């Protein structure tokens, strides 16, 4: 059947039912490359499990980040309609002013992330405040009629969901018939709340237990800016007339600035709102947290290469500020890596990886031998060892296991040392190695960081730090090392603590010494008062200061910086021997091929 026609533009093709494959074809797609079909399934499973892990982790992170924000919001919602609960005349008195409690959520320009935020928000609200939530989007509501339709549809449907499915039909029918007006909404609300009152035993488990007797109705405008102002105005004016009967709360999602409410709504309308502002976490902080928890951790064996990371960060910073897009890009690189690299079956937790190394086929061993990093490793070995590595599969596997272990340890240490280095460099003037830890991370991925000019200059600057800064930094470093999972940091921690005590001592000693010096010089200045002598003494003083041996503090400072330097170097030289070897080697947190992200995003 052809798809050319002069009378039709759409063509549907349906295969005969018996031929139709219902099976998941995704795994099959993985193995359609000719050279490495054997492990395709395993690779696919690994990929999926890894991705699911990462996904749940990111969701967890996002939830945690929004926690505070939601807590504030929930308490506001509780407060705003607590009076209504008491069902006294007080409520009506209070609401004489006809103000609708309104929460304005300033969410930032990353519109694509808002969906997730609103979804979790409605979940939270459903669990804590009210079952009656309507989420409205501007594209569904070109007019007030559509808005009311949408609103009532959502509210009544949600009621059905909360209740049970048996009387769905009647509600469905009535929904279609009901004229969409505020009064019918109020009727609905009254009937629902009354029903809840009378049928408490049945509904105990759902609404009554979590919600109050008459829960408020929350209407969320997801993208307040794109609603037409007339529609918003009409809705606000109408609902303010009925606020006595219907406990309504509005939530505005705002992408730009809270000023937009006042600039888009006339005063007469905005005065009907009782607005409280809520600021969500900025997406940049959000991203930092994500990078911190996803990339700078040994938890996930998959690591992003320098260029890919750079591309993703650039898209984020210069394009959309969207954390969702960043995660999607991350997902794409994971998929691409597993799709293109046959050895990626080893990209899993260390224990599994070891097992998998043991069961590698000959083909896969050959794949390993072809890796450039492995070749370099082989070349650095003795000749008989070389032969064994290149010919005996079992020996190779043994070595690979050891290398994998080394690599794992290296990664654990890498993170701690990176954080430690970041503590030192992040407060330097002009930030030679970047302000954010991600910049430092990128620099480290790019090449041996200690060979760069920036590293040199930052060390120079670090040698000029004052004492109090230095002490706090050292304390931070100690914390990092103590909390890290690396095993070899006991000695490091000891050494750092030693430095700290030395500083402490120095402080006492120095205070005394300095006082001494100042007093003596003071005395001398007082003695000789004529100009010539004064000049001479000053010159002498200066001279002596220049040639003076470094104070103890300065000595100690140098020592500390050198130690940090040494801390960085061995770590990185460890990387030199292990990481470089296995950069593309089995199980190594492999760099996703650079090109994968380049066409993924515009």
């Amino acid at each position: 059947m052809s798809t050319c026609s002069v009378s039709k533009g759409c063509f549907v093709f349906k295969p005969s039912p018996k031929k139709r494959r219902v099976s998941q074809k995704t795994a099959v797609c993985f193995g359609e490359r000719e050279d490495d079909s054997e492990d395709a399934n395993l690779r696919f499973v690994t990929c999926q499990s890894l991705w699911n892990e990462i996904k749940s982790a990111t969701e967890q992170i996002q939830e945690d980040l929004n926690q505070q924000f939601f807590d504030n919001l929930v308490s506001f919602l509780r407060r705003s309609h607590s009076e209504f609960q008491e069902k006294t005349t007080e409520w009506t008195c209070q609401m004489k002013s006809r103000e609708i409690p309104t929460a304005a959520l300033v969410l930032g320009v990353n519109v694509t992330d808002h969906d997730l935020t609103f979804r979790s928000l409605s979940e939270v609200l459903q669990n804590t405040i009210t079952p009656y939530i309507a989420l409205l989007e501007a594209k569904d509501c070109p007019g007030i009629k559509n808005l009311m339709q949408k609103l009532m549809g959502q509210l009544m449907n949600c009621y059905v969901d909360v209740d049970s499915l048996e009387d769905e039909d009647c509600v469905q029918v009535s929904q279609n018939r009901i004229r969409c007006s505020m009064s019918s909404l109020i009727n609905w609300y009254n009937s629902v709340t009354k029903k809840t009152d009378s049928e408490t035993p049945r509904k105990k488990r759902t609404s009554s237990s979590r919600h109050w007797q008459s829960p408020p109705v929350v209407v969320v405008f997801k993208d307040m800016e794109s609603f037409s102002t007339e529609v918003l105005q009409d809705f606000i004016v109408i609902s303010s007339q009925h606020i006595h009967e219907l406990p309504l709360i509005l939530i505005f999602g705002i992408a730009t600035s809270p000023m937009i409410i006042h600039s888009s709504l006339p005063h007469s309308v905005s005065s009907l709102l009782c607005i409280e502002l809520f600021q969500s976490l900025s997406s940049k902080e959000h991203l930092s947290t994500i990078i911190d928890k996803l990339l700078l951790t040994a938890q996930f064996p998959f690591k992003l290469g320098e260029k890919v990371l750079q591309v993703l960060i650039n898209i984020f910073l210069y394009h959309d500020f969207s954390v969702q897009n960043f995660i999607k890009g991350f997902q794409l690189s994971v998929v691409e890596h597993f799709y293109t690299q046959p050895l990626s079956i080893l990209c899993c937790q260390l224990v599994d990886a070891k097992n998998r190394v043991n069961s590698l086929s000959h083909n896969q061993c050959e794949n390993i031998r072809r890796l450039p990093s492995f070749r370099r490793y082989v070349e650095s070995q003795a000749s008989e060892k070389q032969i064994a590595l290149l010919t005996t599969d079992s020996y190779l596997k043994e070595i690979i296991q050891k290398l994998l272990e080394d690599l794992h340890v290296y990664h654990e240490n890498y993170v701690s040392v990176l954080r430690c280095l970041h503590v030192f460099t992040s407060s330097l003037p002009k930030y030679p190695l970047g302000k954010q830890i991600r910049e430092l991370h990128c620099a480290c991925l790019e090449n041996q960081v200690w060979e760069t000019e920036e590293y040199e200059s930052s060390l120079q600057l670090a040698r000029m730090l004052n004492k109090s800064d230095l002490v706090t930094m050292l304390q931070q470093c100690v914390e990092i090392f103590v909390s890290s999972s690396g095993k070899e940091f006991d000695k490091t921690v000891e050494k750092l603590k030693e430095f700290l005590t030395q500083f402490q001592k120095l402080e006492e000693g120095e205070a005394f010494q300095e006082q001494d010096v100042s007093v003596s010089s003071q005395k001398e200045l007082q003695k000789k008062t004529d100009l010539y002598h004064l000049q001479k003494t000053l010159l002498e003083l200066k001279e002596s200061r220049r040639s003076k041996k470094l104070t103890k503090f300065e000595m100690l400072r140098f020592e500390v910086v050198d130690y940090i330097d040494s801390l960085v170097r061995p770590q990185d030289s460890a990387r030199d021997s292990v990481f470089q070897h296995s950069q593309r080697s089995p199980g190594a947190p492999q760099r996703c091929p650079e090109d994968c992200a380049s066409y993924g995003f515009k």
Partner: protein
Amino acid sequence: MSRPEGEGGGLRVKFVPDEEVLKHIADDPGIKVRKDKTQLTLSVKTFVKKLEDISDDEAQEVLEEKKYVAALGIGTQDSMQNGSSVSGGEVYSFQTPKRASKMAELASELAQTPGQSVAPEHAECPEKTAKTPQSSKHSSSNKVQQKNEKKEFVSTTPYRLRKRLAAPDLYLESESEYSASCSEEEEDAEDQKEVSTVLSGRKTPAKTKAASTPPPRNTLAKKIKENKMSNLVEEYFEAHSSSKVLTSDRTLQKLRKRKLDQQTLHDLLKKAPLAYAAEIKELNEQHESLFSKWMLQLHLGFNIVLYGLGSKRNLLEKFRTSVLQDSVHLVVNGYFPSITVRSILSSITEEVLDHIGTFRSPLDQLEFIIKRFKEDSSLELYVLIHNLDSQMLRGERSQQILAQLSSLPSIYLIASIDHINAPLMWDQAKLSLYNWLWYETTTFSPYVEETSYENSLLVQQSGSLALSSITHVLRSLTLNARGIFRLLAQYQLENKDNPSYPGLSFQDFYQQCREAFLVNSDLTLRAQLTEFRDHKLIRTKRGADGVEYLLIPVDDSTLTDFLEKEDEDV
């Protein structure tokens, strides 16, 4: 350039003394005005009326008006002498620009005279009367050349050039002419020029009068500077307009070959060898190796968009036939001229989901689809859209609906775009719904299928069809009606060289029809025209001045064919 000069010279011997020609060349704003072709539409009546309007104000102008009328008379006489067989309509049409030039002179006259004694005005009067026949004669010379079938000459460049060359002279001359007078007269000369430029912008006389009031006095130096500036500007435009002559006129119309019909063109193109066939094949094979990857990525929730030069239709077709044979899929030809989102949604609901029933709006339909796909997780649908950025689908609402559709986890969308700015269709929200992966698939293959709904320049347009329909319609009409149509067609053919020909005004047409005894009242004419209009044989257009213009929306060659055929029949 030299040609028109020579021609003018030849006539000059006949009619006017040298110095007046010189003056005419140097100092005739009307020449410039002539360029304004819209002036052609001015009818005699309206012009005279306007003239009266102005002259009401100042009594002295009555005299001038008479001169104008005289000048008109001379003009018509001239043209009659030159081309005795010229029809009335033609005279009118060529007369008008000259009248416009008279207007310019009148305006400049006004500019010079207000508040001044009559004496200088008198001094100029003879000069003017002398001038008028000159310009009219000029127009006639123009006509002569037209008769020589010098189409190129119709382009206004020579006149403009002449004007340009004369521009410095104008300044000098006015300087010498008014050297004894004060700077005020200097200004007047300046004004004259200004008026001429204003006039060329098709201003009503009343307006030019307003514009011609003397501006606040400035220093002489500044004036001169301005004058020079304007000369510079004109030189600039001259330099750039001259490039126009260099433009090649080798258009498709000049091809000796007749236009082909669709089939022969198609056959010819088929015979033409494809350049770099091997390389292109290799390129396509590279793209085809990505199919399994695309499948994987589609299943992981991404959607795929293909961009790059060349038709991607065959690639997608290959993808469809090689990978999607065993699954439900929908192919959408975005380039199909009457494709709509609704038809896409309908084919999903009706053919994929086997739903019988209608929906109030596409949004409802979309909601239904989303609901069905969410309920039944075994449902899967691949959607292939060729040219997602086509004219019909690029609207905001359509894209929104398609984006929402594609965001469903069990709908897999793979689409191609061709417009260079196509990604501008999508804002952040839509992009996140689409969740695109971009693949550059340059194929270099011709857009044969995609452009098959468009008309080709090389193919003969529906001319033959129009001809047959014209004859068909006319055969069923009365003799008078045919005559009416003939008149209009002839008039249009006579004016085919005029690119800004607006059509024949209804009044004129009525006059002509009456003269030919074809109608007896404008009502009958209107009734006939309605008949034509219903068959789309004529088109009416309202001009800027509210006059109705009639036009036959058929190209000239068809019209000529038609007239020839009519002649044969008669």
